[in-house]
């Protein structure tokens, strides 16, 4: 029997687990990356490889210890090196003597055959094409539900009365979504989850600053890689809007570009007219868009030695000056410490709050209109 595992990326594993189970595979859940995972990854990954490669390396090794023999991951067509990571991981794992199979999904828009072949390999339950499409749709819906719940926590957390309530409730509602296995159940669980999060007591008079988070997708989506920056910021009274969610990114890269994708491109055009791979252009475009929406600050997250983000970082000061918006960059790697990061974040938040009060704009109080999230 296939024992399948895949990269750990935030809470998305819940949807992938369901999808792969439905297709008749045994799923070895990728463990949430810990210090041990990172150490394991660093040991076998190349020195200058970016942080995501090292974490994934560790994750794969841990999953293989748990019995996984098939790794499902994504490829890419460059110029970001993440497109070669599947190949490199395979080489390293084979070199270490692990007999695993790697199933790499290339962008289906460019490689439709590869997509079909991979789905066929994973389709152990011998489902009909119609059934597979239905299962994928269901998995997709679950991903959306997970993303929606997460988005809401970013807004509620800075306003909660008792610190930690949101995080606690969020963990609880994730299980509800996790348990839902049919299309209708997922929608029901999502509604209940959003209800539950809205019930958290909030402080309507708190001064809340709004920060947009831009950067490379893996360190944005995996809290273990960004040291739970969203939670930390939420606890500091910052409403976070992340520029990237798995559903949005996947849509842009599989079927066709969404309206959001196009606007980001247009926004970045005066500064960076070229697709430089990774998410360099998105970082710039999103910064411009957030600035136009009067955010108080931007945080850029990037793995150490990530070239697209280095290019973006070189250009961002110009954007910051043109739009008068503060930008803070974190280059993350296995050496990044949480305490140091928190100090920088606290200072950044203090600056933003002070600027907001000085500019004498009416601070943003109160609840967010509920209809925005239903």
């Amino acid at each position, binding site marked *: 029997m296939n024992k399948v595992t895949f990269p750990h990326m935030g809470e998305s594993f819940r949807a992938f687990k369901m999808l792969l189970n439905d297709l008749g595979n045994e799923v070895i859940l990728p463990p949430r990356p810990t210090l041990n995972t990172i150490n394991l990854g660093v040991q076998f990954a*190349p020195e200058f490889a*970016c942080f995501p490669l090292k974490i994934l390396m560790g994750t794969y090794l841990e999953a293989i210890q748990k019995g996984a023999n098939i790794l499902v991951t994504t490829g890419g067509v460059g*110029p970001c*090196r993440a497109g070669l990571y599947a190949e*490199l991981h395979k080489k390293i794992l084979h070199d270490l003597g692990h007999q695993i199979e790697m199933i790499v999904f290339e962008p289906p828009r460019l490689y439709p055959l590869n997509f079909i072949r991979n789905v066929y390999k994973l389709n152990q339950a011998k489902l009909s094409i119609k059934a597979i499409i239905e299962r994928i749709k269901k998995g997709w819906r679950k991903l959306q539900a997970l993303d929606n719940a997460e988005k809401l926590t970013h807004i509620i957390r800075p306003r909660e009365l008792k610190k930690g309530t949101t995080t606690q409730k969020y963990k609880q509602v994730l299980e509800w979504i996790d348990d839902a296995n049919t299309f209708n159940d997922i929608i029901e669980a999502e509604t209940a989850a959003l209800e539950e999060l809205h019930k958290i007591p909030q402080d309507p008079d708190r001064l809340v600053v709004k920060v947009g988070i831009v950067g490379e997708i893996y360190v944005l989506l995996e809290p273990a890689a960004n040291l739970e920056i969203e939670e930390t910021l939420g606890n500091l009274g910052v409403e976070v809007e992340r520029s990237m969610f798995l559903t949005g990114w996947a849509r842009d890269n599989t079927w066709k570009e969404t309206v959001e994708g196009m606007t980001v491109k247009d926004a970045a055009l005066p500064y960076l007219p*070229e697709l*430089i791979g990774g998410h360099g252009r998105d970082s710039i475009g999103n910064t411009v868009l957030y600035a136009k929406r009067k955010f108080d600050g931007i945080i850029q997250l990037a793995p150490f030695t990530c070239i697209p983000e280095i290019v973006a970082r*070189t250009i961002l000061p110009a954007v910051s000056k043109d739009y008068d918006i503060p930008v803070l960059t974190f280059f993350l790697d296995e050496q990044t410490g949480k305490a140091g990061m928190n100090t920088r974040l606290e200072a950044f938040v203090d600056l933003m709050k002070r600027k907001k009060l000085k500019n004498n704009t009416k601070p943003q109080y109160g609840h967010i209109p509920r209809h925005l999230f239903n």
Partner: protein
Amino acid sequence: MLRIGIPSAFFYYVHYPMWKTFFEELNVQVVTSGKTTRQIVDNGVREALADACVPVKVYFGHVIDLYNKVDYLFIPRIVCLNKKTVYCPKFLGLPDMIRYGIANMPPVIDVRIDARSRKDSLFAAFHKVGKMLGKTPLQINKAIIKAKICQHNFQKLLSSGFQPIEAINNIFAGQVTKPPSQLEQLKFAVVGYPYIIHDQYISVDIINKLRKMGISVITSDNISNLILRLQPRVAAKHLFWTFSERTLRATSHFARRKDIDGIIHMSAFGCGPDSIVDRYIQLDNYSSKIPFLRLVIDELSGVAGVSTRLEAFVDMVKRKKRGMP
């Protein structure tokens, strides 16, 4: 006369003769920033992002050096030249990095070159640049032909064993240095990106250092494109970046040649593509029989440290060659 600045870094080692001829045919003076010096590196380190790799910092330094010496800076956005592989992301965003990364620079001539689309091809790029300078298509075409011939001569010199800087001197300064003699007892291959191995400052002049030790040197730039393209494909998925693909193929070519006694791979600290190239070289065991040295350099590399490692490596290779254990 209009002055155009071409920083002596990155593509300088690959395309400089072509662009210089092109501009001079159009009656434009070409100014370069010369050899990398301590001053240039320091300037670059100050202005560029700390996390960038050394060559980027060096490039920044060269650009700063050209400040107030030129009317325009020529920084093309080279995306793809062979219709297959693109260049490292830093090249794709290079004009923007310079434009927004350094204050008060002269205007940048930024032309997109992507051989995969007709409107961005090299030919079109020549015409766009020529038009910006206010020249007629006839003049531009004439200049293109001259430029191509010059580039062809440059490639011929490279294939005959000259290193890029020697070839450039040979073409423009008329220094008729003989190709380095092939009589030395040892022959090393130095592989890596041309803007690292041929930059005499950041590579701590490795090529001449080896020559002084009585070793003849061949680099990946001395191998013709055809030979590189004919290398059997090792990786299941080819690398995305032109220079990296070239380095990998050159290494596999050298590893199979009988006359090479050692391979040195030189890369810069924090180089993204090299993190993959290097592991490919190790895992595919290209150099199972040939001694292999990987040198990582950064802006702090000391000459003494690199020399010691080189000497140790050379001694090891000599012992091996004499059949000693």
